[in-house]
């Protein structure tokens, strides 16, 4: 099943919603989040300036006075592109490790 389908436009809208309105209620007040990234493997690609990068993540999220963390772990499969000395994310595919997500919404970035 597909939970996320983002592009540049939709991500800008998410950022706008959080930064420029104060009524984005699923992140107002903001969650306390950490993104722990491990097992990073960088692969060369057919293009000199592009790299395929896989990594594992654990995201902790805590809201209000909740006694528990909302947790999400998974794998990210990225394509990074070197452009004018800057690394830019060109594509990201995320595999989540749960069938029924214990996080009620994906209002944060992965």
């Amino acid at each position, binding site marked *: 099943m597909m939970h996320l*389908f983002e592009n540049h436009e939709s991500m800008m809208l998410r950022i706008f919603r959080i930064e420029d309105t104060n009524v984005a209620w699923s992140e107002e007040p903001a969650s306390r989040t950490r993104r722990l990234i491990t097992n990073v493997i960088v692969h060369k690609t057919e293009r000199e300036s592009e790299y395929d990068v896989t990594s594992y993540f654990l995201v902790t999220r805590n809201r209000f006075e909740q006694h528990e963390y909302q947790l999400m772990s998974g794998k990210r499969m990225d394509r990074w592109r070197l452009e004018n000395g800057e690394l830019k994310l060109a594509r990201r595919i995320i595999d989540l490790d749960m069938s029924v997500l214990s996080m009620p919404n994906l*209002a944060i970035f992965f």
Partner: protein
Amino acid sequence: MNIAANGIRHLSDGRSLDDLIKRDTREVSLAVMNDAELYEWELQQLFGRCWNLMGHESEIPEPNDYMVRPIGEDELIIARDRKGEIHASLNVCPHRGMRVALGEEGNSPVHKCIYHGWAFRPNGDFVGAPAEKEKMHGTIRDKSELGLKKARVALYGGLIFATWEHDGPSLEDYLGDFRFYLDMLWNRTDRGTEVLGPPQKVLINCNWKSAAEQAAGGDGFHTISLHRWLIDAGLFVNAEDGTPPAMYGVNVSANGHVVRCIPVDMTFARAKGAGKMSLEERLQELPPPGITPELVPQLSKHLSDDQIRLLVEKAPQVGGIFPNVNFLFVYAPQSDGTMLGAMGIHIIVPRGVDKCEFWTWMFAEKDCPEPIKEKMLRNAVQQIGSSGLIEQDDTDTWPHITRSARGAIGRRDLTLKYQATDGENKPEGWPGGGHVFEGFAKDDTQWYWWLAYRDAMLP
């Protein structure tokens, strides 16, 4: 709790449904949002007797395809047999209670319990136990008595429903006057709809009714506050006169099911002037959500003129099927100026007194051009469901209500109020049935959800 042979009538402290749901003042006790006894009562009498949405026939197109789906906390195998017929049976092994199908979906001519190996057909019939000559199912009961417990199945517009009430009302009667509205969404094209993938599932720490009275009850009122960002960001604009967008329309409650018919020009600037267009112009320029110009000629084959007019001028954009279904057929203006539709359906699955799962399917008409289907799927995922920019605020709100319902004083003294109403006011010449409320979205359809809840809970 009084479990008499003829059903539960009140809680063990003596409170009856009329104490919890006060019909004279249109109030509901806050305690209902977190009450273990009431929850048991709901599982038995409400979920145990209603027609429940199991999914869509396009999810199991081939013989022996199956999927595992919930009615309350019971789990069912929904399977298609060799002849194409769909069956629903309890996913519990009658031998010692093991779950039989362990995956969420699959294809198999037999469902074999991994524990001792009893096997069942897609229709639930018992095939046999291993070591046939040793008679490992015993000799006391006949094989015909050892199948999975069977539910009754009915389809409507491709949607699969199941109930444990083998002698209760038919699905058609259960929907009643609501079919007129449902047909505009699920029975309007030659080949009907199909799912765009398996459902999203998320867990919410709230009582299922916090979600259901809003989503299945047709609460339009919360848009103005909880979904405020859509208005602040200029995505929702009342093109006509600057009044709050997406709030005016016609709200209908029929048999506890709900539909909100919201004119597109009341929500999006893009639709400015739509009220002055002819029906033909609107069909081409602003077709109903999910309908592409190619599909327009099909509409008149399936719908009456009244239905087409309503679909075009006041599209049924959101609604619910009692008790726990919410559907959305919403206009989705794109930044390139084109208009797309997003079609989705949710079920709210109880998972204990203070937990529920929220499932989301995305849909398209089967005959919709493939590239549009792909766009519709991406757009729907961005708008509704787990990451949807519209719906993520809903799922973060409901847990607070369930939390509120734990406090002793709140439970005892607080009520949920459904008192904003102008009364029934069916517009002149309105073609459909049910209780019809034209104007600002008030508390009426949600209140009718509670009345349906009360009826469903009574023996």
